[in-house]
């Protein structure tokens, strides 16, 4: 916690210099757990506004306490229903809970229909739960970063357990899964050959497997399929954790207490073995990298936005290669230097 004190000192100086009062009172509101402040803070972070960045810096010393649980799986596997049930059990156990539920943004209109709350009515009525629906806003690959910023806000607001529910299967949800301390992958017997589809991605990130809708035909076979694939997977480095495969019926709550126990066991064990810290470092590393990429991309394409179409013309006409065109765009930001050279990005 010595780091927290140092950070607070820095914050004090920065605020004295320039910050307008509303922001610091917003940070105080978040730390006090005020819903309006938490909601506003998540919006600022989500919009990538400069105030949002400053606010997250203010909140940084108050983060790091919550355990983050990622829940992912194919569409219709029962993610929202299961998250709702888990949240209620966590509340019964005296925890405070935050939920981030991500739904896809339409690539055509930019709009989104965020319907996860329909299946979360049990938890949604309880003031101890803060639920935020989030559109993936896929344009700049910002899904994971925005969801993680939102987690930081909920963490600073004092939530002990934060559950992130991803969009259905694809690539992005592996990203979000990488944002969690414990990853729960949900499958269901009616998804067809689900295990084949996820051999490469989800199989490697799952800490706990759930076969939901276990009252339907084919559940036992699916459990066996997952176990077969897991045979081939090495035990996690450090704590030797082997992902259990649990059966649930989320709509009735069957199997959920065992699932929660398994999640808590993973939380305790990964913290004790140090794999929790390693993972968190990895996560922070890739977040920083993503954010650098995102702002560079915005800078390069923003500065060279008008030039882009001209370059497209040249490439289509065969006068330039795509790589050559990209380098020319990059040079506009790096001031003519080769972006690969040592000082290429300064300025």
């Amino acid at each position, binding site marked *: 916690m010595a780091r927290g004190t140092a950070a607070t000192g820095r914050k004090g100086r920065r605020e004295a210099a320039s910050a307008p009062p*509303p922001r610091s009172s917003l940070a105080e509101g978040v730390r006090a757990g005020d*819903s*309006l402040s*938490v*909601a*506003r803070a*998540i*919006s600022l972070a989500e*919009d990538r*506004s*400069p105030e949002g960045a400053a606010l997250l810096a203010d909140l940084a010393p108050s983060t790091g306490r919550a355990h983050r649980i990622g829940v992912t799986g194919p569409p219709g596997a029962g993610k929202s229903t299961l998250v709702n049930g888990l949240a209620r059990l966590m509340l019964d156990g005296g925890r405070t809970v935050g939920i981030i539920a991500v739904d896809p*943004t*339409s690539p055509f*209109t*930019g*709009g*989104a*229909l*965020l*319907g996860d*709350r*329909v299946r979360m*009515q049990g938890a*949604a*009525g309880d*003031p101890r739960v*803060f*639920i*935020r*629906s989030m*559109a993936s806003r896929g344009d700049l690959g910002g899904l994971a970063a925005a969801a993680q910023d939102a987690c930081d806000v909920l963490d600073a607001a004092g939530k002990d357990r934060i559950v992130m529910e991803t969009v259905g299967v694809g690539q992005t949800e592996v990203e979000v899964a990488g944002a969690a301390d414990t990853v729960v992958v949900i499958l269901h017997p009616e998804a067809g050959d689900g295990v084949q589809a996820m051999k490469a991605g989800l199989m490697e990130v799952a800490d706990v497997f759930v076969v939901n809708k276990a009252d339907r035909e084919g559940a036992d076979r699916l459990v066996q399929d997952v176990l077969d694939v897991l045979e081939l997977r090495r035990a996690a480095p450090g704590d030797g954790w082997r992902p259990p495969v649990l059966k649930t019926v989320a709509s009735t709550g069957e199997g959920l207490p065992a699932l929660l126990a398994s999640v808590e066991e993973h939380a305790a064990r990964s913290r004790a073995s140090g794999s929790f810290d390693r993972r968190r470092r990895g996560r922070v590393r890739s977040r920083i990298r993503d954010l650098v990429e995102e702002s560079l991309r915005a800078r390069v394409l923003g500065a060279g936005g008008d030039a882009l179409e001209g370059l497209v013309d040249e490439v289509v006409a065969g006068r330039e290669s795509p790589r050559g065109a990209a380098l020319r765009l990059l040079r506009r930001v790096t001031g003519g230097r080769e972006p690969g050279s040592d000082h290429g990005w300064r300025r």
Partner: protein
Amino acid sequence: MTERRIRVLICKPGLDGHDRGAKVVAASLRDAGMEVVYTGLRQTPEMVVETAIQEDVDAVGLSLHSAAHMTIFPRVLKLLRKRKADHILLTGGGIIPDEDRRELEEMGVGRLFGPGATSEEIVQYITAEVGRRRAAARAGA
């Protein structure tokens, strides 16, 4: 900084199950580029307001066909004010007699849309009204 996307909460409070209208409106608002949070049926005014706050929406649209509008709209409005969230536009639609509509609008509820309303009208109204409120908030800040 590009303008923040308009976020709207669409709810069906009370006990009637006629959610067709709410779903059609939710889909049109999404198609107009808005982020629409949809909660489904049987929401209490308290749930509506808590959800509106957590989701940081610009507008709440309530769909009512149960004749409970004179109870539910004023209650939601009062709770929004009590929670200091009355920057959120409260609008809606359903089967609401003209007389009641005028009375609700005088109380501070936004425009209410009847059976003849088109999706375009609703989209235009929400876009314009949210734009106006945001501009006012910026001027006041």
